[in-house]
């Protein structure tokens, strides 16, 4: 493959034709945050956290899906880029479920990590949330859509990695969500125990059921002296 030269953050970098900006940047040791993107999956450019500035382009471009071209002048951490990334995180946090202290996955949450990296605190926006009932009828998977950030990694991993097609997208605007069938709670009929989606979920929206939960729900705690 032909080699091309582009400029990233004022530095000449070499890349192979067909590489995305993200891949070229990573290879040159430049870190760009990503949320909806995973190297194993086909990029869809949904979260926009990986946007970068390409000189001459009208808008910011998603680095995970835009092929790098010879002579491109790219800024991955300009003020404009950082402001947009921060706004995206703020928007996600403002619509994300409550407190991290209550979340099992808080310490492995990608959203929380990027928020910390970008120094995003409390969002400037009002909290706008969609609360969904916890889907815990399946023995294999627990789904809490209130924590979902619509990166669609689950849906893509299910199709592209596991070779199934359990998830779909429904509704529009703020109410858009990842659905199973005609918006049914996920159960063992449609989804078995491969667990691929769970490993792809960046937040606590997908998880494995825990024994402890069952116990607590079934038997009220009795205190004996």
């Amino acid at each position, binding site marked *: 493959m032909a080699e091309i030269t582009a400029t990233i953050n004022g530095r000449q970098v070499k890349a192979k034709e067909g590489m995305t900006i993200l891949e070229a940047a990573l290879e040159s040791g430049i870190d760009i945050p990503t949320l909806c993107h995973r190297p194993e999956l086909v990029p869809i450019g*949904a979260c926009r956290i990986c*946007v970068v500035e390409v000189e001459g382009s009208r*808008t910011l471009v998603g680095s995970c899906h835009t092929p790098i071209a010879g002579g491109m002048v790219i800024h991955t951490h300009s003020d404009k880029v950082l402001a947009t990334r921060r706004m995206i995180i703020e928007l996600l946090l403002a*619509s994300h479920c409550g407190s991290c202290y209550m979340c099992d996955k808080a310490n492995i949450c990608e959203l929380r990590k990027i928020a910390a990296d970008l120094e995003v605190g409390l969002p400037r926006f009002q909290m706008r949330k969609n609360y969904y009932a916890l889907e815990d009828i399946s023995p294999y998977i627990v789904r809490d859509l209130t924590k979902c950030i619509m990166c669609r990694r689950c849906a893509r991993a299910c199709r592209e990695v596991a070779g199934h097609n359990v998830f779909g997208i429904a509704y529009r605007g703020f109410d858009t969500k990842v659905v199973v069938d005609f918006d049914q709670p996920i159960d063992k009929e449609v989804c078995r125990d491969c667990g691929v989606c769970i490993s792809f979920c960046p937040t606590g929206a997908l998880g494995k059921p825990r024994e402890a939960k069952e116990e607590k729900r079934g038997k009220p705690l009795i205190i004996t002296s």
Partner: protein
Amino acid sequence: MPKKKPASQVVNSCTILVCHGTGCVSGKAFEIREALEKKVAELGLKGVAVDFTGCHGFCQQGPIAVVEPEGIFYTKVTVDDVPEIVESHLRDGKPVARLFYHDPVSDEAIPLYKDVPFYNRQKRIILRNCGRINPERIGDYIAAGGYKSLRKALLDMTPEQVIDEVKRSGLRGRGGAGFSTGQKWEFCAKAPGDQKYMICNADEGDPGAFMDRSTMEGDPHTVIEGMTIAACAIGASEGYIYIRAEYPLAVKRVLLALKQAEEEGYLGENILGSGFNFRIHVKEGAGAFVCGEETALMASIEGKRGMPRPRPPFPAQSGLWGKPSNINNVKSLATVPVIIANGAEWYAQIGTEKSKGTVVFALTGKIANSGLVEVPMGYPLQEIIYGIGGGIPDGKRFKAVQTGGPSGGCLPASLLNLPVDYETLAQAGSIVGSGGMVVMDEDTCIVDVARYFLSFTQDESCGKCVPCRLGTKQMLDILNDITHGRGKLEDIDLLLKLSEQIKAGSLCGLGQTAPNPVLTTIRYFRDEYEEHIKKHHCRAAVCEGLVSAPCSHTCPAGIDVPRYIRFIGEGKPAEAVAVIREKIPFPAVCGLVCFHPCEAKCRRGQLEEAIAIRMLKGYAASHDNGLWKENIRAASPTGKRVAIVGAGPAGLTAGYYLARLGHSVTVFEALPEPGGMMRVGIPDYRLPKDILKAEIKEIEDAGVEIRTNTRVDSLDELFNEGYNAAFLATGAHQGMKIGVKGEGSPGVMDCAEFLREVSLGKKVEVGGKVAVIGGGNAAIDAARTALRLGAKEVTIVYRRTKAEMPANPEEVEEAIAEGASIDYLVAPSRIKGHSGWVELESLRMELGEIDSSGRRRPEPIKGSEFATGYDTIIAAIGQRPEVPERFNISLGWGNIIEVDPDTLATSREGVYAGGDAASGPASVIEAIAAGRQAAISIDKYLGGRGEIEETLAPPEGEIAPLEEAEEQWRPKMPTMPLKKRLSSFGQVELGYDDKAAIEEAKRCLRCDLEERE
């Protein structure tokens, strides 16, 4: 469709063509055609044919019928009109005049299609056949020159030549983005691949836009021809037309046209013997706005959820099913056959340097003529709105025009001179888009418009990318807060930041343009946003969360109009006065002279006629029995002294409320009598002196001391005398100069001075022939006063037209009834004084471009000078305040006192100013409102809480919203007979009697009682 020979083979003496576009069909056009056919058959008329066409684009006037070859244009035809049309016109040759188009601008009936200004200023290329041919007969299209271009492109040109022709024509995508169509074709043609697709984007989703639908309904073959030419150029063998399923008629006609084209050999295998194969499928879309985006549209054709995907790869490389594809808008494709037929050079000479050809707009909103308008690129916006559109109906003022639908922006009056093309509109923050154009007048709230468009994009966002899904939601919520009075000033900046980042960060065009309506409205109408946030005021009286009843919301003093009108309706005028007195101390004055902005916003006005609010107030005030005094609270003296300079409506109102709060108030008045402009500006025939005197007496009774004949020149002296605060309400009494040579000549008077002298009883002689220069209320007052002083001939000279005249139309009517005449579009150029008379040299004017006030600027016509002799010339150009230098306060433009708009504080501590002196010449009610604000601010300054709100009226009984409103007009106001008027200064309006007032009050819709969210 009844079996008939093609139109070209039948020799008929006349054909009546009924419009069968969706608009006219919903107006029963099918039934009208059937009735016509039946009636024609019944009468056995020979040589009369009944046929139909597609949309004419003037849907507001539908159902439309045209009689050819005469070209008689019938509008708003109903089935009941059919017998008359057939008998009178088709049989007897006498056209039915009552169905002619009635021009809203010139007020004339226009019988012929070609004379209708809506049409004859347009240049129709895309819509060339719409309304002219039968869209369900391919023969009609061929007879109109159709499919010749296809033949030429297939047989005489190579694909490269076709692409080159389209490239050189400068055609740019009419879907909104404006990318070069020829280049787009070239990309796709050059892309490697054996299977390519040609797609027509007919997913028209902008609210109010319907040009694509009309094109497909009125001329489906042109789209097919354009598509086939494009397919041949790029090498596609299959095509899709993506039409939204909400367009059943368009789908039906396109399917029929496809069948006919295939039968005639214009589609299918080996087209016209060229060896080229092309098939077109119709895909009905489910109505998602985002499917107008090309990648989402292709996903939808593939049967997936319509969501955009990142580009590159562009559709030209990898489109539908991963194959090279080309997508063009309906209008772009409809243009292609014309370009091939007439050549690139012909097309390139239409339009501007960068934007070639014509553009179609769906002109709607507050406009006299709404419909489809096709004009060359670069056509001025104001010509579309005022020339073709006929301007704003009902005498309302233009506010903004929204172009490009939810992705476009709102442009203010000051930009109406802009030429319409891609670059210019983009620079102004808007876009040409797919061609929506919504005109808004003063009754449209700009924040509400932005909120509406955001709610549309949020609903239509596919939810894929974060900025669009969540960002527009936050923007919408902020706008909702602002329109409900919960906004904060920081919200405007947050909106701007969000907008900028949503535009930069979104994945597709929907998100990248969604903030445009918000950005442009903030850019051009920021003051309205601030008004909503700071004052909870919506000047259009639209926002439900802020406005209870539009009348009281619009009243500067906030009088609770619906409540007092209910009291009047119950026969309790004294209680009504108490309600009015809760806000103003001048009920009777306002009942006679208020310019009643409330009535302009009255919801009843949208039914038939606004409630006569002012006249009802006058009625109540004349039946006052002092009931309001019962609930007055007494305040203990504060020991603070306030000096008020000027005893006009602002000064006296402030004095009244300050005295009621326990302050000791002295009002200084330079003239011998108090009342300000109410006393010396408004003539007696409108406001009798004793009525004013009685209301001022009530103010004096409240403890206000008025010192007349006392001019204040220095504020320091006032403070030295021990006053703790001062309110400057000195008004605007100094007349402005005309600015022409010779205006100092004897015989030339200043209007303010003239009215003042007459009011104060001085003897003023005007002679027999008088000219009044100006178009405001003062000019009208001067004219009517001059008539009462014995002038035989009074001419008002105004440099603009009736539509721009600021004077109250009722007053203008009265003046004309009393014998004054008005010379519009005339401006004085010079005055020459002679002994005993003056000569006025004037120029005729014509209206030119729009100025910053949103009105068309009058420009002199060269060589139109003319001179007229008068005994007196009265200059009513305007007034400005006279502020003594020793006041030591800062003044603004036009000599007005600079104040904080919220508190009315001036640059000096303890000194406040309001009324005309701080606003420039305005109205009595605005001065009263300023007086109220001054009282609040001064009381707070003196240590009080600034509470002047009070309840004076007794509680209302059980009340309910008005159930049903039957059409009923306001009773006529009895006036003094014309003959008697000119001999005295007696009051012209005689007032409603009990019966008329109660009847009128009962028309009130009681908007304040309506339930809201």
